[in-house]
């Protein structure tokens, strides 16, 4: 039932036809944009904080292999066990090993898009391990057997009536209500029981600090703290790009993140984890594991321009400001990361065969690039990916996964003919003469082009002819 990027066009059409969904997204996006605008009321401040955030991310990426090694050795020194995974299968195998070695059957999970990327919940289910989402939005989405439709607010596509319906169906003893406080209390009660009894807690990572071997987690709800504090084992998973060099790199990124994401000066909790419970401590996990996942990121890293994709701090501002995302919502993309960031990261994670339509789903209006706190040139990258999807790689560079997957002979033929015609004056004049004289012969239906447009009609005379007439 889950959407796939291969069916993007059909999914987008279905989404567009769903009035309730569009209203939910419209409301949510307006809200988030307003909040961000207030948080960055001062344009100068916005500019300088973006300068700083961009500089930090670029510097840290420029030293990525060294920083990963430094992170690893400092984590180990702190008592954190570090694992590396090339892809989803390897990452899931690591999770299975750890959880089963403790005889665990229930894991509670804080919000982590990387764990969505490896489809952790499904993989664990196959091993007989229940993996319960504990972020309120994720919990709702999981109840409905859906996937998150936004990277910050996973259940943004649902309104409270729809949430109440889900609870009525799935939460025993729930008395139907549209009161949001009561709805949250309902979730709270279910989930608190799970934190208490879970064997393992799973989380993502917002920033991993190489200098000190520290994992930073940004959240408002406290479920992240619950998952990383109460169960005896904590497993954190992150993409390899999330590492930063110094602890001092964290405050500016944290500020850029919260203000861009939800317009907050700061989140309720900022949790810095640098190791398991010590001998004399009375709580906190007895084991902390860190899983470092590549899953296509090193492909993006290899190309200097595409490397900028990895600067992303997952604030979601690009999707909040994207006219396409606002109208079709997150699910239509069929990828873990929707919207502008999804369009530039997914081709690396899943290959261009599967994702070739995504880079074309943009008006290139530039809004995403304009709000991105780390200044990822998203529109340029979209154009670059469009190119890679159709053409051979630049000489001397390695092909992308799925390079040229969208190449079409017909299209190539059209472009070659266009080049031929426009570079030969005689041919060009002949053709435009024909086009103007026989313009009535051009059909009204021109395939997909005329599905929502009227067919173009050439003028009666070419501009050249008109000018010649005038200058006579």
């Amino acid at each position, binding site marked *: 039932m889950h959407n796939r990027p291969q069916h993007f066009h059909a999914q987008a059409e279905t989404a567009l036809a769903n009035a309730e969904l569009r209203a939910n997204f419209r*409301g*949510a996006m307006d809200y988030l944009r307003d909040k961000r605008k207030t948080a960055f009321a001062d344009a100068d401040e916005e500019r300088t*904080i973006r*300068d*700083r955030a961009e*500089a930090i991310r*670029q*510097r840290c990426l*420029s*030293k990525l*292999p*060294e920083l*990963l*090694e430094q992170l690893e050795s400092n984590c180990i020194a*702190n008592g954190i066990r570090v*694992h*590396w*995974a*090339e892809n989803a299968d*390897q990452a899931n195998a690591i999770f299975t090993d750890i959880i089963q070695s403790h005889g665990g059957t229930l894991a509670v999970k804080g919000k982590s898009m990387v764990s969505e990327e490896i489809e952790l919940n499904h993989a664990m289910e196959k091993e007989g391990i229940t993996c319960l989402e504990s*972020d309120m939005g994720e919990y*709702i989405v999981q109840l409905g057997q859906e996937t998150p439709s936004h990277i910050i*607010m996973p259940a943004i596509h649902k309104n*409270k009536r729809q*949430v109440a319906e889900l609870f009525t169906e799935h939460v025993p003893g729930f008395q139907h209500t549209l009161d*949001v406080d009561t709805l*949250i209390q309902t*979730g*709270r009660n279910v989930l608190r029981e799970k*934190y*208490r009894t879970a064997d393992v807690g799973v989380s993502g990572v917002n920033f991993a600090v190489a*200098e*000190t071997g520290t994992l930073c987690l940004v959240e*408002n*709800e*406290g479920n992240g*703290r619950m998952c990383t*504090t109460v169960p*005896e084992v904590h497993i954190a998973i992150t993409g390899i790009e999330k590492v930063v*060099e110094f*602890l*001092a790199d964290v*405050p500016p990124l*944290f500020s850029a993140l919260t203000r861009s994401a*939800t317009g907050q*000066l700061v*989140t*309720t*909790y*900022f949790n*810095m984890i640098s190791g*398991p*419970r010590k001998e*004399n401590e*009375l*709580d906190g996990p007895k084991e902390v594991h860190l899983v470092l996942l*590549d899953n296509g990121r*090193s492909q993006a*890293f*290899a190309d200097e321009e595409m490397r900028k994709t990895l600067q992303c701090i997952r604030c979601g501002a690009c999707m909040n400001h994207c006219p396409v995302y606002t109208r079709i919502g997150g699910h239509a993309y069929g990828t873990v990361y929707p919207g502008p960031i999804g369009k530039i990261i997914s081709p690396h994670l899943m290959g261009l065969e599967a994702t070739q339509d995504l880079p074309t789903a943009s008006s290139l209006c530039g809004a995403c690039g304009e709000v991105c706190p780390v200044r990822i040139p998203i529109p340029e990258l979209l154009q670059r990916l469009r190119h890679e999807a159709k053409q051979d790689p630049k000489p001397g560079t390695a092909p992308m996964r799925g390079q040229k997957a969208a190449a079409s002979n017909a299209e190539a033929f059209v472009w070659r003919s266009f080049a031929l015609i426009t570079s030969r004056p005689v041919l060009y004049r002949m053709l435009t003469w024909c086009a103007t004289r026989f313009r009535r012969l051009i059909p009204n239906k021109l395939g997909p082009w005329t599905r929502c447009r009227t067919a173009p009609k050439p003028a009666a005379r070419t501009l050249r002819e008109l000018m010649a007439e005038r200058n006579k």
Partner: protein
Amino acid sequence: MSTARTAILDRLRRVNARPLPVKNPDYPIWTSTDREDMLVRLTELLEQNHAEVTRLPRAGLVAALRERVSGAGLKRLATGTGGEFFEEITQALQGTAEQLCFDQPLEQWKDELFNHVDAGITGCHGAIAATGSLVLWPGPAEPRTLSLVPPCHIAILKASTLHANLPAMMTEQGWGRGMPTNLLLVSGPSKTADIQQTLAYGAHGPKELVVLILEDA
């Protein structure tokens, strides 16, 4: 998975990315050296985030705690086993409410802490005025879950430990040289806006955050 490690690092190395020097362009950040300024900002921001803040002299701590505890009808309170305010806390709770000292591993009284405790009391390591955040540095005397599991968290802060902003506090205290197992910024009670962008408090952790600021300490 050491083969994965080698393969990933090899691929990254082969790119030969040129390491960029540390260049940190300045950005404006709220700052002040005036204690009162900082206190006002901290209080305002905490209150905006739904915390309840009281400023008082240290000598008034016992009375304030007592009033707060009986006023809100809190019956069973979890506390640490030490820390700077342990004696005052113990004194305040005597005859007011039942004190449960966190003196055994969490596993041994998880159920009780989750289901039968009304509030947890902790001290603060410091606070940050710029963002209205308390800094908690849990340890054996005041474990992590004290500020997380009970539905109400009472935090005691000495005004003298207030810093203007996070980078200032990190540098002054040399956090980069080594970190405790867990360090936390807390800027309000637990909250969520996940259902139709409607703000609700007490999503998972404390529904209430009570901050007592000792102005002369």
